[in-house]
């Protein structure tokens, strides 16, 4: 490269030295024959094809099933960095659960004037059917995937909390499995914290959320919308790894006041349902009557204390991007502590001053829909054409409350393996968090998503991003 990279590279420091967490890895890498690595890269792809790790991309009929590209250079995080991150994530997840409890009970945070009432009252993600319902242990978001980005040595930001339905944990597990198979020697040279306990921990965490009327050993199951869902592979993968049933709505019915699944030996009661079906479709008796994906009456069974639904319905309000902008206040309000992890500065376009600023600086900003996810419906100002900017300006003007905007962050890079060797690419990180009445558990590392195009800041797999194995080193 002619110019020095202005981005913080997590492996190679600006002056050409290798950052500490990568020392052992770099020593190994520099001794590798590039053609051997290239062959290994092909092996990895074959491995993913064999295990069937694919995902569906919405709106692209031709390429419905795709592999998410895997890059063999790991992303390495030191023990010190991780300790701080994990503490910050735990604090945030704890606060979000307290916020959700409050919002569906006394709304103290609204009475205190910390969040404007209308932001909740007029929010489609606020689910009236959850009012006054108290889930076991006051846990609403049981499985969280906090999106973290880094801009410097000690600068970590939370980009999204993903308290509703985080996906991608199967890639975290498969990426590690692949690395262990391809380069076993690396794991004797580096002391990497394991991630393979995740399915076991997930099962334990879910079982600990059993409802009040569950007697005996809780039965856990995963509810999937079916094979056409983009994350179906993950649903079946997790069910298989946990040793629980993967069910669809039509497999379930109300039996003796509980939800039960059809088995060869009759109906079996389910105590904890990890559902990957959206709120609207979850219960045609209580929500959308036309839904074929859900389980009629499950909300009544839930309210009667006969099942636990994870994540709890109505959790999506915490993922609203306007609510996100208040998370530091939320953390302080419920925990009495300052937020450890920073938020990205966020302009709420519902506010006239903010909207004006956003319209004046559109080409420098990232604009997102408040309920959006997966990189759909967003504008990356610096990468947008004149026409895209003009189109988005129209959208913003006609429905400002639907959008927030953020400055374009200079995301950190980690090299990927290309023909000529190493080349930096922007990354983010999604650690996976489990919450139960017994506590909060974070798997060391998570899923690193990487933008494969040089200079691109969009890491979403639905937008052509890839993944890396993520290492957290032991002390």
């Amino acid at each position, binding site marked *: 490269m002619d110019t020095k990279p202005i981005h913080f590279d997590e492996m190679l420091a600006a002056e050409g030295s290798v950052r500490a967490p990568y020392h052992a890895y770099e020593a190994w890498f520099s001794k590798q024959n590039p053609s051997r690595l290239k062959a290994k890269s092909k092996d990895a792809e074959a491995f993913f094809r064999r295990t069937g790790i694919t995902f569906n991309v919405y709106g692209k009929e031709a390429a419905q099933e795709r592999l998410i590209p895997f890059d063999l250079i790991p992303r390495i995080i030191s023990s010190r960095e991780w300790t701080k991150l994990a503490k910050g994530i735990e604090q945030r997840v704890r606060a979000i659960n307290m916020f959700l409890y409050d919002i*569906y*009970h006394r*709304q103290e945070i*609204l009475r205190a004037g910390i969040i404007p*009432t209308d932001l909740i*009252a*007029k929010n489609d993600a606020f689910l*009236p*059917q*959850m*009012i*006054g*319902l108290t889930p076991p242990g006051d846990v609403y978001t049981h499985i969280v995937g906090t999106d973290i980005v880094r801009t410097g040595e000690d600068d970590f930001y939370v980009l999204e909390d993903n308290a509703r339905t985080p996906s991608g944990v199967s890639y975290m597990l498969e990426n590690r499995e692949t690395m262990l198979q391809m380069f076993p020697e690396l794991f004797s040279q580096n002391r990497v914290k394991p991630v393979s306990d995740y399915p076991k921990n997930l099962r334990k965490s879910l079982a600990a959320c059993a409802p009040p009327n569950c007697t005996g050993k809780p039965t856990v199951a995963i509810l999937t919308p079916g094979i056409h869902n983009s994350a179906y592979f993950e649903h079946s993968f997790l069910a298989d790894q946990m040793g629980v049933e993967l069910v669809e709505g039509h497999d379930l*019915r*109300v039996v*003796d*006041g509980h939800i039960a699944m059809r088995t060869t030996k009759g109906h079996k009661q389910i105590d904890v349902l990890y559902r990957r079906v959206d709120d609207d479709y979850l219960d*045609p*008796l*209580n929500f959308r*009557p036309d839904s074929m994906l859900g389980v*009629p*009456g499950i909300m*009544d*069974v839930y*309210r*009667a204390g*006969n099942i636990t639904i994870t994540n709890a319905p109505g959790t999506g309000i915490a993922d609203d991007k306007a609510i996100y902008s208040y998370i530091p206040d939320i953390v302080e309000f419920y925990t009495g502590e300052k937020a450890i992890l920073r938020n990205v500065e966020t302009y709420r376009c519902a506010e006239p001053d903010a909207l004006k600023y956003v319209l004046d600086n559109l080409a420098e900003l990232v604009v997102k829909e408040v309920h959006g996810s997966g990189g759909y419906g967003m504008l990356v100002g610096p990468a947008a054409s004149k026409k895209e900017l003009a189109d988005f300006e129209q959208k913003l003007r006609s429905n400002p409350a639907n959008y927030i905007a953020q400055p374009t962050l200079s995301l950190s890079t980690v090299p990927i393996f290309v023909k000529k060797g190493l080349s930096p690419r922007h990354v983010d990180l999604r650690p996976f968090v489990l919450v139960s009445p017994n506590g909060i558990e974070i798997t060391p590392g998570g899923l690193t998503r990487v933008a494969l195009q040089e200079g691109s800041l969009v890491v979403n797999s639905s937008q052509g991003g890839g993944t890396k194995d993520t290492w957290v080193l032991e002390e």
Partner: protein
Amino acid sequence: MKLSISHTTTYTYDAPVQYGLQKMRLTPVSDRHQTVLNWNLAIEGGTSELTCIDQYQNHCTLVQIDSGATRVSLTASGEVETHSSDGILGKIYGSAPLWHFKQTTDRTKAGSGIAELSRMISTSTGDLGELHALSNTILEAVPYRNGATTVTTTAEEALHLAGGVCQDHAQIFIAAVRHAEIPARYVSGYLMMDDRIDQDASHAWAEVHIDGLGWVAFDVSNGISPDERYVRLATGRDSIDAAPVTGLQLGQARETMDVSLQIQQ
């Protein structure tokens, strides 16, 4: 006034039901207006699966229709002592916050007609005189007429159809009141018409939150605030939330409903 009530809802299917549920909100709860002396739910052709309390404190019973049944009948009966409260429920609040009752729903969304009606309300604190005037205006504009609307008709639609039943009256009133930023809710229940024991149908009216008074009831269809002849069953934001029975069944069977309701002193 001690009211003796027997309310039977019968569903008949033109083919055996494979799997179906009926959610009943047919259990009145004691409050300032009424004391439930005794109450019983009897189910034929189905089984009670569970009871639960919903987000509006309604007591719900989930019933599964017996597999292969072609008929299910749900009978709610008992005695309720009602009190003279001039329609004032007062400052009794459940978990649902007041701001929730200011939000429109699909059935209570204000169109141009509702917005026009809403101009009769000058204050967001709620004024009894204005609210009674609004109620009278709605009844004039939308006289009681069976068959003009269906259970899914919205407030705005009913207003334009210029005819409707108690559900429509209550929803038009609620929509107009909410449009003026005043909390309002829908109530389903019973009204004993003095001249008969066999009543036509269960009833519906509205409650508005007025500063200083709390919740106050308005029966638009009869142009009065509910008195001792009324029994509250369920409340919610609209007729979906407070429906006495909500059902769902899988399969091709077509459902017809028949209601028999006796109320006497």
